């Protein structure tokens, strides 16, 4: 897989952080930009509402990644219902698939956006699977 550029790390990201309303965008870090710099892929979570089937599809994907050497995290945003993560529905779906719940990082729009961006960057840069798990899969 020498010519493959994948980063082996993925973030669950609420719709509200990918498509921030113009009024809120200035108060939030550019999450997609921070993810890109840190080499993460994105699994987009739907906006608030009933999304039973779609969340099950997303849980299937998270399970597939988690069982094959990919690091998965979740990034929420304070002020959105459930931090935008649909955790009450998603967590049992993940447990049912034998997946440990991903570590969560919550963006706080009430704090300085640049500082929040740095805090997010530090979280993303500092997270990965244990080295022995990486060696097992990432060859």
């Amino acid at each position: 897989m020498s010519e493959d550029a994948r980063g082996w790390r993925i973030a669950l990201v609420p719709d509200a952080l990918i498509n921030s309303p113009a009024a809120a965008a200035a108060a939030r870090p550019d999450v997609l930009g921070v993810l890109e710099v840190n080499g993460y892929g994105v699994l987009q979570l739907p906006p608030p509402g009933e999304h039973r089937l779609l969340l099950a599809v997303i849980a299937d994907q998270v399970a597939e990644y988690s069982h094959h050497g990919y690091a998965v995290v979740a990034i929420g945003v304070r002020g959105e219902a459930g931090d935008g993560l649909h955790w009450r529905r998603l967590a049992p779906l993940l447990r049912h698939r034998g997946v440990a719940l991903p570590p969560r990082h919550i963006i706080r729009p009430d704090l300085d956006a640049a500082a929040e961006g740095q805090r997010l960057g530090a979280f993303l840069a500092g997270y990965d699977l244990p080295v022995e798990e990486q060696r097992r899969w990432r060859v």
Partner: protein
Amino acid sequence: MEPDTEQKAPRKVALIANCLLNQNAKVCEGAHYRGVVSPVVEALRRRGYRLQQLPCPELAFAGVRRWWAVYEQYDTPAYRDHCRRLAQAIAPQIEEYLRRGDEVILVGLDGSPSTGVRFTSSAPDWGGRPNRPEDDWRLVARRGIWIEELEAELARRGLPPLPATGWALDMGRFDEAGSRRDLEEFLDRREKAAASQGEDPAAP
């Protein structure tokens, strides 16, 4: 724009192939970026598009360690059923966008057996031991299986066909500059068409 006005104004929405936000979904040796395909994201966001990631049908069906495959190998009743299930999962959101008057476009992945828009990969004799020589397949001008099933689901709901293009990642030799130019031209044509109809192409 006032928040209330912003909520009601028609928006520009881009449905994008799963792997354009997450290259980890690609088949082994198919990832050209670590995660986000930034040229696509930049081009769309610069023009005010909201992003709506589509599910990856191959990952959920055949897993992250799947073999490379062509259109004919995925053209099975079971895979089409799976794609229909995914289409039913995402279609309500797409329908909501269209019903509220948003402009919705689709950016797939040209060359992909599943997500190809203008081209898909074909090799009717592929099968058995996966030891085919490199480039032993050809491009044909048609949709991939997933896009066919997604469009069929939208049609079943009485929704109009979506303007669509593909990021040419799976066309053999990847040409990022050419792909970027191609996408920009498609988006520019959309803006010109909207402007000629008296709409504000920059409206979010």
